[in-house]
C-alpha cells in the first residue's frame, strides 16, 4: 500500500508531539466564515493538522475549497473565525516572522532589479548593502538565476520572476515556507522543472514547507504528505502519505508508484471537483 488511508476527523490538539522541540506549525480546529447569518459562507471548517520539522506538506483541493483562505489564515494575513494557528507554540496574531510566504500572484517589485528584490527582507532588517547582496547572491544561485542579478523583473519570464519571489522569501530565512500555488500561472513543463528546483532547495535547506496547490502531480512530486480538502465547506477529507524515495526529481512522474498515488488522489478529488463544478453551474443558471 503506497498511500496510507487516514480519515482525518480533526486530530485531537497536541496529540502528536514532534520529535524535537515544538512543531513548526500547528493548525487547531481552524474555521473561517465570511459574512453573517443565513448568507454566511464557511470557507474553512474545523481544519486541524501539524507540520513536523523539515516536512513538505501539500494542501490540495478543487477551486473554491478554501485552500487559499487557509493559506491567508496561516500566513497571518487574515483572521480566523474560530480556532488557533500556532507557529512554534506561539499563537499567531498577524504575519509571524518565522513564516516566509510565496504568493500566487506576481509579487516582485518591478522597480528593483533581481538582487535588490531578493535582498529586500534583509534591507528591512537594516543589513548592510554588501552583506545583503552577498546573501541575496547565494539564494539567486540556489534558484538558478545566476547572471540575472541586475535584470529588472520586466526583463524576465513569468517562471523566472516566481523564482525571484521564492529566493526573496528564502533570503528572510524563514523556518516555515508557505507557498500559495506559486506555479499556477505557468505552463506544465515549466512547473515540472520548477518543481525540480524546489526539490533541490528542499534537499539543501531541509525547509519545512506547506504548499497550497490544485495540481495533483505537483503535490505528489514534491510532498511527504498531502492533505486533500473537500469542496465547501473546506474540510480535510483525507491525508495521503507519499512514500516515494528521496531525493526525487521530475523523473518520478513516470514511475508506476507515482501514477498509483495520483490515481488514488484523483478518485477523491474528482468527487469534490465535480460537486464544485455542479454548484457553480447551478449558481450561474
Amino acid at each position, binding site marked *: 500500500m503506497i498511500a496510507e488511508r487516514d480519515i482525518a476527523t480533526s486530530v485531537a490538539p497536541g496529540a502528536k508531539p514532534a520529535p524535537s522541540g515544538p512543531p513548526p506549525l500547528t493548525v487547531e480546529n481552524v474555521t473561517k466564515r465570511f459574512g453573517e447569518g443565513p448568507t454566511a459562507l464557511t470557507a474553512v471548517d474545523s481544519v486541524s493538522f501539524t507540520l513536523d520539522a523539515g516536512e513538505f506538506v501539500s494542501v490540495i483541493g478543487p477551486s473554491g475549497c478554501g485552500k487559499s483562505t487557509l493559506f491567508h489564515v496561516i500566513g497571518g494575513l487574515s483572521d480566523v473565525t474560530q480556532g488557533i494557528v500556532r507557529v512554534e507554540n506561539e499563537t499567531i496574531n498577524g*504575519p509571524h*516572522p518565522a*513564516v516566509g510566504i510565496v504568493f500566487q500572484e506576481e*509579487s516582485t517589485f518591478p522597480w528593483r532589479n533581481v538582487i535588490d528584490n531578493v535582498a529586500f527582507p534583509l534591507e528591512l532588517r537594516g543589513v548592510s548593502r554588501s552583506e545583503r547582496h552577498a546573501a541575496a547572491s547565494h539564494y539567486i544561485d540556489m534558484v538558478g538565476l545566476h547572471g540575472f542579478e541586475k535584470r529588472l523583473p520586466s526583463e524576465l519570464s513569468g517562471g523566472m520572476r516566481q523564482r525571484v519571489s521564492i529566493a526573496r522569501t528564502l533570503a528572510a530565512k524563514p523556518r516555515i515556507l508557505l507557498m500559495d500555488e506559486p506555479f499556477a500561472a505557468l505552463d506544465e513543463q515549466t512547473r515540472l522543472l520548477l518543481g525540480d528546483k524546489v526539490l533541490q532547495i528542499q534537499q539543501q535547506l531541509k525547509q519545512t514547507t506547506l504548499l497550497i496547490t490544485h495540481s495533483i502531480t505537483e503535490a505528489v512530486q514534491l510532498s511527504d504528505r498531502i492533505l486533500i480538502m473537500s469542496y465547501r465547506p473546506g474540510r480535510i477529507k483525507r491525508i495521503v502519505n507519499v512514500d516515494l524515495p528521496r531525493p526525487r526529481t521530475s523523473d518520478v512522474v513516470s514511475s508506476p508508484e507515482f501514477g498509483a498515488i495520483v490515481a488514488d488522489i484523483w478518485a477523491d478529488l474528482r468527487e469534490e471537483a465535480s460537486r464544485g463544478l455542479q454548484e457553480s453551474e447551478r449558481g450561474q443558471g
Partner: protein
Amino acid sequence: MAATTRVTAAPARLNLSVSAIRVIGAVVILGIWQLLALSGLFFRDVVPPLQNIAGGLIKLLGSGAFYANLAVTGFELILALAIGGIAGLVVGLLLGSRALLSDAYESWLSYLGPTPKIILFPVMIMLFGVDSGSKIAMGAISCFFPIAISVAAGMRGVDPTLRRVGRSLQANSWQMFFKIELPAMAAPLVNGVRLGFGVAVIGTLLAETKLSNQGIGFMIINAYTRFDMPQMYALLIVTITFAAVVNAFAERIAKRFGGAGSGRKP
C-alpha cells in the same frame, strides 16, 4: 544579415522623415506668418515680421529687467509647487488610503478640480496682498487638485500583493510607505506633478497679467498695453519654450518611472 540591415535601417529612415516633416511644418508656418506680416492686411504690428520679433527677442534676452521678472515668476512658481504639491500629496495619500475619506470627499476634488481658479483671485489679493503672495496662492491652488487626484489614484492603485509582501516580511509603516507604496506609485505621482506644474504656470501667469507690477505675466500684459508687439511675441516665445522644455523633461522622468512601474509582461 540582409534582414538585420533592413530592420535597423527602417526606423532610422522613419526618424529622418519625422524630423523632416517637422522642419517643413515649421518653415510653412513661419512662411505664412511672414507673408501675412508683409501683406499689410493687419493693423501695423499685430502680425510683425519675423525679423522684428527676432529683434525683440534679442533685446529682451539682453535686458536686465527681463531676468529680474523671470526670477520673480520662477520664485512664485517654485513656492506654489512646493505648497500645493505638499498639500496635494498629503490629501491624496489620505484619500488613497482611507476608503471612508475617499467616499466622503473625493467627489469634491473632482468637481472643484476643473473649475477656473482665477475667480478666487480677488479673495487671494485680499488675503495675501497684491505682490507675490496672491500669485503663489493662485499657483498653489491650481496645482493642488491634479496632484491630490493623481496621488489618491496612485495610492489606490498600489498592488495589494506588494503590500502583503511587506506585511509578511514585518515591514513597519515607514518602510511600507517609502520602500513599497511610494516607488509603486511613482508613475502617477510624477504625472500628477507634471500636470500640476502646467496648471501652476497658468494660475501664476494669469494672476500676474491681472494685477501685478512684476513677473513674466506682467511683462506680457505690459508689452501689450504699450503695443510693443515684438516684445510681447518675444515674451510669448520665451514662455512657451520654457513650458515646453519643462514638460518634455517631466515626461521623460514620468516615462522612466512608468516604464519601471508598468513594464510587466503578462
